[in-house]
């Protein structure tokens, strides 16, 4: 059986989650490998969540928030912008492919972008293969 990656998406409630909603109501087709959980703001995302996600068996993690300047809570996504590079560094040092973690800005009207990113990530991680970090 072909490898089907498990990609965890942590989406902010106001923009990216609504965007994903729009992709759904517009019946856009995209790969089912993206499994989304909701937080109020991308600023809620603790770097520890990402590491935990990989430890829980995720092959890829996507954090999505509002476009800079458009955060519903004004500045939350700027804090995210500051925190996420640390993850990239840590993954590099741990020997995990950087392509497995992505930070995207998706607005509420960009349903097509959600579909695009989901498909892209699935393709990329399929090629990279399973991570198998879960004991």
């Amino acid at each position, binding site marked *: 059986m072909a490898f089907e990656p498990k990609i965890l998406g942590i989406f902010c409630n106001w923009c990216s989650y609504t965007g994903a909603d729009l992709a759904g109501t517009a019946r856009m087709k995209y790969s089912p490998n993206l499994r989304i959980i909701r937080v109020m703001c991308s600023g809620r995302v603790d770097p520890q969540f990402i590491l935990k996600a990989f430890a829980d068996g995720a092959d890829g993690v996507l954090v999505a928030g509002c476009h800079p300047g458009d955060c519903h809570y004004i*500045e939350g996504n700027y804090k995210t912008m500051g925190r996420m590079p640390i993850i990239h560094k840590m993954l590099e040092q741990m020997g995990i492919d950087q392509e497995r973690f992505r930070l995207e800005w998706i607005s509420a009207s960009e349903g097509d972008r959600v579909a695009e990113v989901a498909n892209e990530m699935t393709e990329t991680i399929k090629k990279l293969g399973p991570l198998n970090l879960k004991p």
Partner: protein
Amino acid sequence: MTKEKKTETKTETKKTKPPQEMVKLIIDGKEVEVEKGSYILHAAETLGIKIPTLCYYKHVQPYAACRICTVEVKRGKRVRYVTACNFPAEEGLEVTTFNDRIKTIRKLNVEFLLARCSKVKVLQDLAAELGIEKSRFGEGEEGCILCGLCVRVCNEVVGAKAIAFAGRGIEREVTTPFNVDSERCIGCGSCAKVCPTGYIRVASTEEDKIVHRDITLGPNTAIYVPTMQAVPNRPVIDTVSCIYFRNGKCKICAKICPTEAIDYEIPDKTEEIEVGTIIAATGFELFDPRKTMQYGYGRFDNVITSLEFEKMNCAAGSTNGKIVLANGEEPKSIGIIHCIGSRDKNYNEYCSRVCCMYALKFAHLVKEKTDAEVYDFYIDMRSFGKGYEEFYNRLLEEGVRFIRGKAAQVYNEPIYPEEEGKLVIRCEDTLMGRVRRIPVDMVVLCSAIEARQDSPELARLLTLCHSKDKFFAEKHPKLAPVSTASDGIFIAGCCQGPKDIPDTVAQASGAAAQAMSLAAKGYIEIESATSEIDKDKCTGCRICNDLCPYHAIDYIVADKVSKINEALCKGCGTCTAACPSGAIAAKQFKDQQISAEMEGVLS
């Protein structure tokens, strides 16, 4: 955001005048008392006696060039004939404003003036009044009666001093120094305004254009009432073009205001007002058709936008509601092109919603006011509202010609003889299946409604989201069209998307009602998903204090820990992620909850 400064006029304390010496004189048998030093003309005015003048203007020094205001004055036994406009009132003067001798003098002076300017209307009117059929001294064709009003106004009121009399005798004329284009002229148009003959015209130095370009479609003067429906309905002064603010002169508006309401010194005030709710109703801008060069806007005089056409049609506008071409003539044919900048992949993909209906309105108005042919170039006819489709059918019966096919280009070069002197609209008539060239006199472009250029700025200020086309985003396209993601901030009207007046009014009412219901409740409902700091875990590091965009976190000095104000917290969780001690719990989005979700989703 706009560069224009406005000074509001307000009633200020009354200025007290020092007591003046008064003199008594008799005019036409009636006694009158006036200030010493004022002229006979003023005295006659107070009695309601009218003395004709040509070169007199109340707010400049009298010049007595025309001699029309000649009256008879008698002091004791001495009788003289003087000009009323500059002869000072004296104690005991006896004035007669009209008798046979005065009539003779006036007739002679008018004949002299006619000898120079026989075609000038004010002179012809005076001549008719005095019974002059033809001047004995000839019939000149000059337009300027050398009254000097323009010179005096330019010198004394405006202070620009750009024109003056030059030459002597028959060479005398009003001109600029050395007859070259003046550098001192500020283009205020005061000279043209006071000129009694209309000889002075304000024109652009590029080409002689009138109507759409020279007659402004906006305010004509530096002090103006913004619109007929302005609230408060008071004039404002545009300090950029006002002469007083430029060089300290003029002040005519203050001089003639009967209630002395004008005060130039009122400074602009910035007021800080605390409010509980905000409704953004900032409107729209019109797509600039200069971008769609093929329609010739800005290149051809008779291609105008719908808004310009509407302003022209307005009875209070510059042409008093007459539909005219740039040269002042009535058009014999008008083409109305829909969807300029809308329904267009190159500019805006959306439909601008209001254009089909106002295009029909224009067509109807043209048919009512003129007998011009009207050609309407449309893609689809969107007549969605009450009575709209019925109105469209009515127009079909009125003989408006509808062509289904977006116009491709407007040409200025004729190919066929019937296109001479006209603009040609080239389009594909999709119902006929043919490409057509339609010659018209005037083209009206239905320009799209666009979001204002500065709306991203406002969106940032009010934490509003906006969509790709820059209109503000409502909370939910179907269920919450006037509220936004930010509590207490509402949007209404075209800033949310193109819409017509009934829809705007409905939205505005909705937004107002929602805003008022927030205030009327007497309490506010707060988020349930707020964050909480566990006092025992908090180390007082204060990293979270500055992170909160709502300033909801305070440091309690006595307890040496931080505390979150529940009423201000919006529950974003940014502080939660930052806390190094894990002391903050974001209710409903706690670390344990998110972990559980992740485990479940990834199992």
